[in-house]
């Protein structure tokens, strides 16, 4: 039966690739042929467990869970304290804490600060107008570049303005006050673990 099927298969294939260079020995049932590779392995015999042991195991699991539930229920009414809130009334009571400024500022000092603030406003405003000019000039420059590119070739233009999510998550680490020290191995800081573990956590 299988031989006949193979033959049918072979004939079918031969008709498909009549003019190909493949040489097939699958044409006649009496020709030699390779058996298919067996990649299986004999099934393992299942170990049979004693039903009593299984029952004992389940019982132990259940008891463990029940114990944990009982433990949690015992502390159900205990809320986890929030330290920030605890200290607040204490702080409110302690109103005697003073500011660093003990004596009120002199008239002269107040005047100085006011004038400095005005000066600062002017400085910032001029900075802002300068920034605006720069931004405008950059945008203009890019517009001109894109216009020129469009005039040269529509396809290149399309490629240039296509959305590319390669650029999107953008991160930068800004300038710092002093440059990094070469080959500096920063030491691990020392710390004392003070986190409290509460029951049921």
């Amino acid at each position, binding site marked *: 039966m299988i031989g006949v099927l193979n033959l049918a298969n072979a004939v079918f294939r031969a008709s498909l690739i009549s003019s190909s260079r493949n040489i097939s020995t699958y044409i006649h049932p009496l020709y030699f042929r390779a058996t298919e590779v067996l990649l299986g392995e004999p099934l393992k015999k299942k170990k049979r467990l004693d039903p009593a042991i299984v029952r004992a195991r389940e019982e132990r699991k259940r008891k463990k869970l029940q114990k944990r539930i009982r433990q949690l229920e015992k502390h159900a009414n205990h809320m986890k304290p929030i330290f920030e809130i605890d200290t607040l009334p204490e702080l409110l009571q302690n109103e005697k804490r003073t500011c660093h400024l003990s004596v009120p500022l002199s008239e002269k000092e107040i005047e100085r600060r006011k004038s400095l603030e005005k000066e600062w406003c002017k400085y910032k405003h001029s900075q802002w107008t300068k920034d605006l000019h720069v931004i405008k*000039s950059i945008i203009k420059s890019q517009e001109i570049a894109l216009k020129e590119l469009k005039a040269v070739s529509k396809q290149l233009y399309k490629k240039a303005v296509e959305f590319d999510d390669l650029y999107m998550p953008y991160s930068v680490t800004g300038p710092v006050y002093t440059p990094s020290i070469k080959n500096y191995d920063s030491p691990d800081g020392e710390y004392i673990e003070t986190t409290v573990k509460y029951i049921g956590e």
Partner: protein
Amino acid sequence: MMFKRILTLRTPNSLSFLTTSISSTSKVISRTLSEQIKQDIDIDIEKWDLLSAVCLERHPVITKSMPDIETRFHNMLQQMEFENSTISDFEMQKQNNKNRKTIQDFEDSWKEEFTNFKFAERISENEEDNAVMSLRRKLDKNLVLLVEQKIGDSNFWIPPQSIRKHRETMIQTAHRTVQELCGNNIKVKFYGNAPIGFYQYKYPKNLQERGQNGAKIFYFLAKYVSGDISPDIKHCWLDREELKKNLHPDLHKSLVKFLLPD
């Protein structure tokens, strides 16, 4: 050709919806083909060389020194913040005379630790660092990379540029430019696929007669991330003022349009 043959084979015995879909696909194919032809014609008529150039910037590593007004305002803000803040627990402990001495000791030891720590210099005194080729020069300024390239018969100091090859987009040319002119050791990040600046110039008459009118250069902005340029490439990192001195004035004018001033 192959696709067309399949189409002709399939159409006679297929249903109506198949034929419509096929006709639409063939339309799409013909459209893209015509576009490609048009693009090639565009460039041929113009007779301009297309170039991509990369303005590679090293952004400041350290902050700029504050101008006078900024320092004064900064001091005032700090003073105000200190005045308005309440006394901390530590300061209260210090005010209680009980263990004043130990607290003073603590403070002294912290101060000593701080003064003993040696920060890196803001301005390097090392001559090697201050050379034009070094990336560690002028840490508080934006630096632009210039390389020496041959244009026509003479050499110029310009941002790295190269001619677009067939089938390349402008940004691909820019990426290739960085690789070819700066080596593989350097890592850069581009700021977008769209060119940010443009500059064009005409070739001298004798070259124009040979076919090309001139060059259109599209500038892309990129930032230096890490790595180094191989030292055998003639290059320099210049800040804005030095850029003005070293570039051709026309080119400098078009670059300044999109470079952030100091």
